Structures are given as C-alpha cells and as structure tokens.
C-alpha cells in the first residue's frame, strides 16, 4: 500500500517570508496524483494545489508552488510571502489512478508569526 510521510510535525515562518513543507511517498506505480490540502481550525479541508505525476512541470497556484521530484518520490510545498491566514495544518495526499482511497500524511502544523 502507498504511504505518505510528512517528517515535520510543526513549522513556523515569519510573515512575508517563505517556508517549505516536506512530503515523501512510497509507491510502485508510475502514474498517480499528489495533493496538498490545508485544514484551518475550522476543520474545513481546502485544496491548495495538485500535481499529476506524468507532468514534469511543477504546479503553481499564486503564492503556492510545489517541487515535485518523481525519482526521489518527493513532493514539497513552498509558500511564498506567508500570510497570517496561511496558519493551518497542511496535509500531503497521494491518489493512485487505479484505487480510489486518497492516502494522507500525518500533517504539518504551520504557524505564521507576525
């Protein structure tokens, strides 16, 4: 079964600075999808960014971008110009093209300091 590992339980960043959250995964499949979700204290999971494994180009969404290293099975999230509203739990997730369950990492709690 695929596993997703987030090695940083907590991270902090100064407002307006840049922070990178790490994620690695284990799979034997060549085609799959990767996601970063944000969960603020309201508990509502919000999709931040997603990447298709067959695409070489790293996905970007405004201040959010990923560094997808397929050979290393790494999928890190970079948040630029951090804002107070970015404070939340961030979950990395993997989804196979074959099976339906989305596999989530344990999460990284991001604190943004004013």
């Amino acid at each position, binding site marked *: 079964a695929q596993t997703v590992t987030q090695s940083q339980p907590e991270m902090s960043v100064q407002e307006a600075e840049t922070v990178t959250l790490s994620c690695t995964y284990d799979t034997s499949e060549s085609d799959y999808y990767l996601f970063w979700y944000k969960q603020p204290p309201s508990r509502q999971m919000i999709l931040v960014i997603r990447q298709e494994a067959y695409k070489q180009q790293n996905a970007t969404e405004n201040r959010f971008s990923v560094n997808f290293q397929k050979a290393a099975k790494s999928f890190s999230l970079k948040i630029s110009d951090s804002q107070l509203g970015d404070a939340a739990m961030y979950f990395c*997730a993997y989804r196979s093209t074959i099976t339906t369950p989305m596999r989530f990492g344990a999460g990284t709690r991001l604190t943004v300091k004013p």
Partner: protein
Amino acid sequence: GAGVSQSPSNKVTEKGKDVELRCDPISGHTALYWYRQRLGQGLEFLIYFQGNSAPDKSGLPSDRFSAERTGESVSTLTIQRTQQEDSAVYLCASSLRGRASYNEQFFGPGTRLTVL
C-alpha cells in the same frame, strides 16, 4: 447549499451506544467519501460511494461501522456499540467523478465524535 454539510457538528456519546453521522454532498457530485481523523493524525479512508455502484468498504475498521447512501444524495455513517477508540473527527467529502482521480474532493466541516 453550496458546499458539503455534515451533522451534527459535535456528538458526545456513552460507550456502547450507537451513533449516526450525516453527510449532505454537493448537488450533482456522484462520488462520496468518509474519512476518520484521529487527534494529531492524518485522514484515514473509511468508505467510498460512486453512483449506484457497490461501495468500496475496504477502509471500515470493524463490522461495527457501516454506511449507506441513497442514490447520489445523503449518506449516513453508523457506528454501533461505540468504543472510546472511535473518538475522532469524521469527515465527508464529495467529488464529481470518483474514478477521475484528479478531481478535487470537497470536504465538509466534519463531525467531532467523543465517546465517554
């Protein structure tokens, strides 16, 4: 409504009691998922519904857990004879087509279940 809704928001129950959790997906979404999130942990897949197909129950932890969905509407997750280890937030998500794996899953706010 515009998003996925879940009820109740919080549920406190005594060990041994049965509980029912409800999920209203986004209208038109054929796929519906239930996840469990224990304190400080990631999401754990429980069950998946896709239209009128047989549900994928591979994530249900025991036979005390069951879920139903009528067509493409409301789903209920039932936990019988609750135990303290069932305490968690139960999240529901829906998406347009489950098999199109790239489709975004929209999550509800969850139900926090506490078993005393």
